[in-house]
């Protein structure tokens, strides 16, 4: 059974606001009317140990797809299972299994240290996350030596690194990464590539990586999915998975 399985997934968003004459406007403020499709009958599967890239232009539906997989959005049609569990019926259980990196580096407490922030998310993750796991995640993104510094003192690129460390906590079986290399220098982009390859090929995680950068997907992923205006145009095998990728990740 594939670790991630998507069948006939469709998602629509509101197209505009209801007119003031609509009673719903007065009840709940700006009420939506009309719908535009964000995802249209998407089908694909990702096996354990596979590193799959989702590529497409802005507005293609990449982030929407990732959010549906992460249970942050409910699908309007179709079926999505993660590790055999339906994302609608078993949302909490699904979230225990995934490590998610969102495009915004939000949710960290500025007055807590990097270690404390990760301890907080480790406690909420539903997976066992001990102190070695936190140092492993910080080491993987090159922040182990700054573990006791405050989050407020981090620059944009380092905040991005910490977001990746949060996704790696507790060695999740599924990694969902949205634009992980955005706003980071080339050295760290290489490091991300190593971390992601290591997670997929050595630790057996199913990794779905979203990016608008085709080169990044081509260089990094085993397979790529091309989205265009909510439709899956085609899936391409980029290269065969390496048997055991050399790892730059410590721990």
């Amino acid at each position, binding site marked *: 059974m594939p670790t991630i399985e998507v069948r006939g997934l469709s*998602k629509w*968003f*509101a197209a505009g606001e209801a007119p003031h004459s609509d009673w719903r406007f*007065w*009840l*709940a*403020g*700006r009420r*939506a009317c009309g719908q535009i499709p964000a995802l249209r009958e998407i089908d694909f599967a990702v096996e354990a140990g596979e590193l799959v890239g989702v590529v497409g232009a802005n507005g293609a539906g990449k982030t*929407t797809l990732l*959010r549906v997989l*992460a*249970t*942050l*959005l*409910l699908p*309007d049609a179709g079926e999505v299972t993660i590790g055999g569990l339906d994302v609608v019926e078993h949302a*909490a259980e699904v*979230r*225990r299994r*995934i490590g*998610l990196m*969102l495009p*915004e580096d*939000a*949710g*960290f407490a500025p007055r807590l240290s990097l270690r404390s922030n990760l301890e907080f*998310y480790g406690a*909420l*993750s*539903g*997976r066992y996350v001990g102190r070695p796991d936190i140092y492993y995640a910080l080491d993987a993104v090159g922040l182990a030596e700054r573990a006791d510094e405050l989050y407020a003192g981090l620059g944009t690129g380092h905040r991005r690194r910490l977001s990746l460390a949060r996704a790696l906590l507790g060695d999740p079986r599924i990694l969902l990464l949205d634009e992980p290399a955005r706003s980071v220098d080339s050295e760290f982009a290489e490091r991300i590539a190593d971390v992601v390859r290591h997670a997929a090929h050595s630790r057996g995680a199913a990794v779905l990586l979203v990016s608008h950068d085709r080169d990044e997907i081509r260089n990094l992923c085993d397979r790529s999915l091309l989205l265009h205006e909510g439709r899956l145009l085609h899936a391409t095998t980029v290269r065969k998975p390496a048997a055991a990728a050399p790892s730059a990740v410590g721990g």
Partner: protein
Amino acid sequence: MAHQMFFFALEAALLVVAIWQMARLVERPVGGARDYFFFAAPALLLLSFVVSLVLSSAAALRRARADGSLEALMSTAVTPTGLGLGLAMFPAESMLLRLFFAYCLAALLGVAPRGWEVPAALVTVILSFAIALCVALLAEAASLLGRRIFAAALLLLFCGVALSGALFPLAALPPAVHVASELLPFRAMADAMRLSYSGAPGASLTQSWAALVLWLALLAPVSWLAMEGAFRRVRRHGSL
């Protein structure tokens, strides 16, 4: 932390002094302030902190939603109700600290309850605190559902506090006001706190506690359903 404590203490002191001054103004024609102070202070202190908890937790949710933290938190294994309670616990902690400081100040002024009234007041505070958490969850759900629903919920909250009888005896008002005040939990909180504080007969206090327990039994599942429903709706609409 120390300066936060200082501000909690200052806030509690200002509230006690404000109620004391209000009592003096109300009772000036009669000549004494103590009777009205003992009538108003316990209920008003409790309700002001309950309102502060409800408003602060709804504000925390709105802030988390605006800066993207809500999405980050919802990607963890925490449930919507767990998240709502977590957001309410920070203001709840400060609410309990403020109540503690208010009690210390009242003790310094020689107007704090003593003897068996202390555990009675504690039971009332715990029950009221649990109800306040449920009301905070309802306010958070309302804030997720839209600005107008949140505004209506706030209006209901302030009407409920006004009709609780914390500031004035309800006996002097029309029967319709009595019925309206019975339909909201704040009257039971105000009555229980006043009875606990003044050492009134046990039967009346037990009746007020029973009312609080009933409110808690009603509000707990309702607030849980409201939070689950509100989060399901924002996940459907993509506005998390």
